[in-house]
């Protein structure tokens, strides 16, 4: 096998155009996929469990009415809502992939918003919970941005009112006046009058004198200012984000989108380099008419399959490691996990190599093998990237089964786990090992009609 490997590497070295294409084409595809990843489905299916009563009311802010229900309607327009009757049902839909996410609206949302803006309620801030299926960071990010943009609309409307309240408070603090808190009325001196009083104290400091009383009034004002500044922390928080979104992941793991995009790009490159190389190099043996000469006792057919798989995997490993290193210039990657990258890419390369050899065994010449490899590999990759919830659940089950029969999905899982610590590396590697054996067997059977 060593001599065949040397021969094939020498042939590759003398085919610069092929090598350039093998590197450039995957990079181009990876960029295109990266761009595609920045988009999302038109209307994600989102389960909604609203515990708000039928007439949940409105929020009164400084005499102006804000209707949270209007913003909920806006959210429903942006998504394909599935109204459910319990949190458990919402969780199940997300876990099964029938919904991309679920929004849980608490019964006391409106009351809490009212409390937050009136300074009279509890410290609990109004919270909307969103459940995600994080198996696919692309769809997770899309749903997150859709829901959070709707919540942001509500927050902006409430915060505008709160800003006017804060402005009133500042006016009182500056000029003085009446201020109502917890049902009691206070007369606030204000900084301007305080200054005048303090100036007056400077004239005399006798016990029980008006100057002393004036100083005591300044002290009370200072205390009041301190108390209100303490309260203002909550006010300012509420102004910034009156309604909080609590994120809960019910399935999968969290991988930032840019890190996931790296995993997709690397896996896509690994697939294209390996499949094209394995298919092409095996088809080359027949195109050069050398296959029959090799297998008449010089090399076994199984040995030939193994050699092409190893050749393609080794070359693709080198190319994708270089690519990953290059990507790390732009995206922060944990180089301490580099040994795991090598393991994931090696297993992925072997599985893709076996698939490539099977394709090569089905074709009669290099060009046909390359075309077949592209025609088969790209749809498999795109199929594996279809998010759950984007299609009907039955169709998604079919897609999952088809994806499991090809190396892209497990290779993506392995690379994602290796690069981003997304978990599940062992399972993905085992899956890839099984696919290597299975596709290797298909290739070996295909060679029966190869001569």
């Amino acid at each position, binding site marked *: 096998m060593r*001599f065949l490997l040397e*021969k094939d590497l020498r042939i590759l070295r003398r085919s610069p155009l092929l090598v350039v294409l093998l590197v450039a084409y995957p990079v181009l595809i990876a960029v295109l996929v990266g761009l595609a990843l920045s988009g999302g489905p038109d209307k994600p299916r989102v389960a909604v469990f609203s515990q708000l009563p039928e007439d949940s009311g409105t929020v009164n802010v400084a005499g102006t009415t804000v209707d949270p229900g209007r913003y909920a309607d806006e959210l429903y327009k942006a998504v394909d809502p599935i109204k459910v009757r319990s949190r458990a049902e919402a969780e199940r839909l997300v876990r099964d992939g029938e919904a991309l996410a679920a929004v849980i609206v608490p019964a006391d949302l409106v009351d809490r918003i009212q409390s937050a803006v009136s300074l009279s309620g509890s410290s609990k801030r109004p919270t909307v919970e969103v459940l995600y299926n994080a198996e696919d960071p692309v769809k997770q990010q899309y749903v997150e941005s859709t829901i959070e943009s709707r919540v942001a609309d509500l927050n902006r409307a409430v915060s505008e009112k709160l800003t006017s309240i804060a402005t009133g408070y500042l006016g009182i603090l500056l000029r003085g006046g009446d201020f109502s808190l917890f049902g009691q009325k206070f007369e606030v001196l204000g900084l301007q009058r305080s200054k005048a009083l303090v100036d007056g104290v400077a004239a005399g400091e006798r016990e029980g004198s008006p100057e002393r009383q004036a100083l005591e009034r300044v002290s009370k004002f200072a205390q009041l200012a301190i108390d209100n500044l303490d309260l203002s922390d909550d006010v300012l928080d509420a102004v910034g984000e009156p309604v909080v979104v609590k994120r809960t992941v019910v399935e999968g793991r969290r991988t930032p989108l840019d890190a996931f995009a790296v995993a997709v790009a690397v896996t896509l490159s690994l697939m294209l380099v390996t499949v094209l190389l394995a298919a092409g190099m095996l088809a080359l043996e027949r195109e*050069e*008419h*050398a296959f029959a*000469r090799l297998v008449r*006792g*010089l090399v076994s057919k199984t040995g030939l399959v193994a050699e092409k798989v190893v050749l393609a995997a080794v070359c693709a490993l080198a190319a994708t490691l270089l690519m990953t290193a290059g990507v790390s210039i732009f995206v922060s990657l944990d180089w301490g996990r580099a040994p795991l990258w090598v393991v994931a890419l090696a297993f992925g390369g072997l599985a893709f190599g076996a698939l490539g050899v099977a394709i090569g065994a089905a074709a009669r010449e290099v060009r046909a093998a390359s075309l077949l490899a592209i025609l088969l590999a790209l749809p498999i990759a795109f199929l594996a990237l279809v998010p759950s919830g984007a299609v009907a659940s039955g169709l998604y089950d079919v897609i999952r089964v088809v994806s499991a029969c090809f190396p892209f999905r497990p290779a993506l899982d392995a690379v994602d786990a290796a690069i981003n610590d997304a978990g599940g590396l062992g399972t993905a590697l085992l899956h890839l090992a099984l696919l290597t054996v299975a596709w290797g067997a298909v290739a070996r059977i295909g060679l029966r009609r190869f*001569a």
Partner: protein
Amino acid sequence: MSAALAADAVSKRYGEREALRDVSFSAGAGETIAVIGPNGAGKTTLLSILGGVQRPTSGTVSRDPREVGWVPQQAAVYGKLTVEENLRLFARLEKVRDPDEAVARMLDQTGLRDRAGDELGTLSGGNRQRVNIAVGLLAQPDVLLLDEPSSSLDPRQRERLWEFVGGLARAGTTVVFTTHNVQEAERYADRVLVLADGELLFAGSPDDLHAEVGGDQRDFEAAFVRFLHERGH
């Protein structure tokens, strides 16, 4: 003359189609045998079975394929490798004891020493065929199988090829070749095997074939055509 190569009742089926039917013959050391016949007669199939590229459906071949040099019709060498690299690769795969010596020997025998560093893709068809034959001879086999070796060569190259093959036969190598050019069979073969529709119709010298059809034909090709016609082909 002892048999250097023998086939006994060799048959080959592809599904319903019978490509070879009970073909038996033997070849002595240093003997040159031409396998001739119309298109689809089974000539290449017979050589492939003798060379171990295909397995017979039934019947046996006396030699282990690894002891036989096999040269396919189309040059089975790598266009991106040089002459020397091709020879060295196959010498290693053949597990030749001294690959460097074998490469040097074949470069001398084929007269390609000055082209040793050239990629195969840059050589003429004739020179590629010489390398193709050289690969078949690397392990110095006692038996050499050539499948239409002269089909892509011009007359001068054909002359050099047959001189080369004649030298091998004189040195004791048994040569079995297929050809569509029956004049070549008459000129260079000790015996001819006539195959038609997978059946061995004749095995003997060119003169015997002449005699078989009455000996009144103007040349060997006419005698061959007459023979086939008389046998219903």
